[in-house]
């Protein structure tokens, strides 16, 4: 059973019923789900969570949908791995990798989309939709397939076909929109007003976004019911970043875990699209939109919907925002792969490079519990690291092989 009492405007506080709405009619501010925390407090316990399934649905009491009707591809409860090798390199004794690249459609988006798809069916929609250049597309299409719903994926017309193969395979209708990236944005915002469809990150965004809280819950539980000292999280719209913190914070306020100190939240972006980092460094309260130009395509959002709240989260947690030069994105991917055997996509490269910078600058104490969030799978952005493939060519003879590998 879901303990939702409605939606509330994050700007003016006006309340709305729990319907497919995302902006306040009065001030056009974003809406957020409101929970009945008193009721949750009465039922939630570590034991109840531990008895639950090994998926994100073990936290059903804190999610805005009914778990019994969940569109569930078995998302979540992904590995939290102690990164001893990378930790040694960076001088960090308590470094962990949250490997969310191993979700059913290979990114953390399954968490948010699982909630949105479930909510969409609850509201009676028959079509799931989104505008995406990659991870979100795949996840929406996969969940629509499981739910027996139709799906529409909108992409910029010049996007490489391979980018949406992971969506088309599930039977989604892929719509290539002629025009700029901004045109796709505008069209989809308008379509969301026109069609009775569930646009997961538009009219269902308040519910959708809540799915990312489960990353925070899992980390706390997997650390043995401890809160981390630092979270290093990739940021595009800033939603994931704010919700990881919300998840940790809810566990603390419900008494499920004792906070020994503040968890410092660090948002990371690539320099080619770093509006949140720029605002943080300049001390602005609001994020100023930019035109994205980055290799980290999954983080290429120039006008982040939750930028303002990401800045507030940084402030509330004495965290920070860190950008990395474009050429360090691939270095980060390689570091993680070569030291920990985990292949993340470009967003993961951003996180690992930012982590390295923070460690080198002494921003993280050597015994502080630090979690780096790897949110998408490296097999999705192979073009970024193509240069690693340099096979040694040999004749089919032992001698040729020995000559070639000599000294390796």
């Amino acid at each position: 059973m879901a303990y939702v009492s409605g939606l509330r405007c994050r700007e003016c506080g006006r309340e709305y019923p729990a319907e497919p709405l995302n902006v306040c009619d009065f001030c056009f501010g974003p809406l957020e789900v409101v929970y009945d925390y008193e009721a949750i407090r009465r039922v939630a316990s570590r034991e109840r969570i531990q008895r639950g399934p090994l998926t994100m649905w073990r936290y059903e009491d804190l999610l805005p949908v009914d778990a019994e009707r969940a569109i569930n591809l078995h998302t979540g409860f992904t590995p939290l791995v102690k990164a001893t090798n990378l930790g040694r390199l960076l001088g960090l004794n308590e470094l962990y990798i949250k490997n969310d690249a191993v979700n059913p459609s290979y990114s953390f988006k399954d968490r948010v989309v699982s909630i949105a798809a479930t909510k969409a069916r609850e509201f009676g929609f028959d079509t799931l939709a989104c505008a995406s250049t990659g991870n979100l597309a795949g996840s929406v299409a996969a969940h629509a397939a499981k739910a027996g719903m139709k799906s529409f994926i909108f992409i910029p017309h010049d996007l490489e076909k391979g980018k949406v193969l992971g969506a088309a395979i599930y039977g989604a209708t892929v719509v290539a929109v002629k025009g700029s990236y901004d045109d796709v944005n505008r069209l989809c915002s308008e379509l969301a007003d026109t069609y009775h469809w569930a646009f997961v990150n538009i009219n269902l965004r308040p519910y959708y976004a809540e799915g990312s809280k489960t990353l925070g819950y899992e980390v706390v539980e997997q650390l043995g019911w401890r809160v981390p000292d630092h979270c290093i999280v990739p940021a595009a719209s800033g939603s994931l970043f704010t919700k990881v913190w919300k998840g940790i914070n809810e566990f603390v306020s419900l008494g499920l875990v004792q906070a020994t100190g503040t968890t410092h939240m660090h948002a990371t972006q690539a320099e080619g699209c770093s509006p949140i980092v720029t605002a943080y460094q300049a001390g602005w309260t609001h994020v100023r939109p930019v035109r994205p130009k980055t290799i980290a395509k999954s983080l290429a959002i120039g006008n982040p919907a939750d930028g303002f709240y990401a800045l507030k989260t940084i402030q509330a947690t004495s965290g920070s925002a860190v950008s990395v030069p474009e050429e360090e994105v691939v270095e980060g991917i390689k570091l993680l792969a070569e030291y920990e055997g985990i292949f993340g996509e470009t967003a993961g490269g951003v996180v690992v490079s930012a982590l390295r910078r923070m460690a080198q600058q002494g921003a993280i104490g050597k015994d502080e519990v630090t979690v780096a969030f790897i949110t998408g799978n490296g097999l999705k952005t192979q073009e970024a690291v193509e240069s690693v493939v340099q096979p040694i060519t040999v004749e089919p003879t032992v001698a040729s092989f020995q000559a070639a590998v000599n000294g390796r």
Partner: protein
Amino acid sequence: MPSRRIKLTFPARLIKDPVIWQLGQKFPVVTNIRRADVREDYGWVVLELTGEEPEIERGLEWVRSMGVRVDPVSGDVVEG
């Protein structure tokens, strides 16, 4: 009558210009401001435009040509 919810972002050189007033004068659209934050060097305004679709489009085209950035109110929706 159709309406559109948008966010206008102004660069420093336009902060003192009555762009929104001009928009309402030049085109048959009604502007209704809901939220704003205007500083010395930068500003944004969230507003609703009401009018016929083509007029809204032409109005926004003019606003863009002035150097103002136009975005949907809920930020970018094209995700990675």
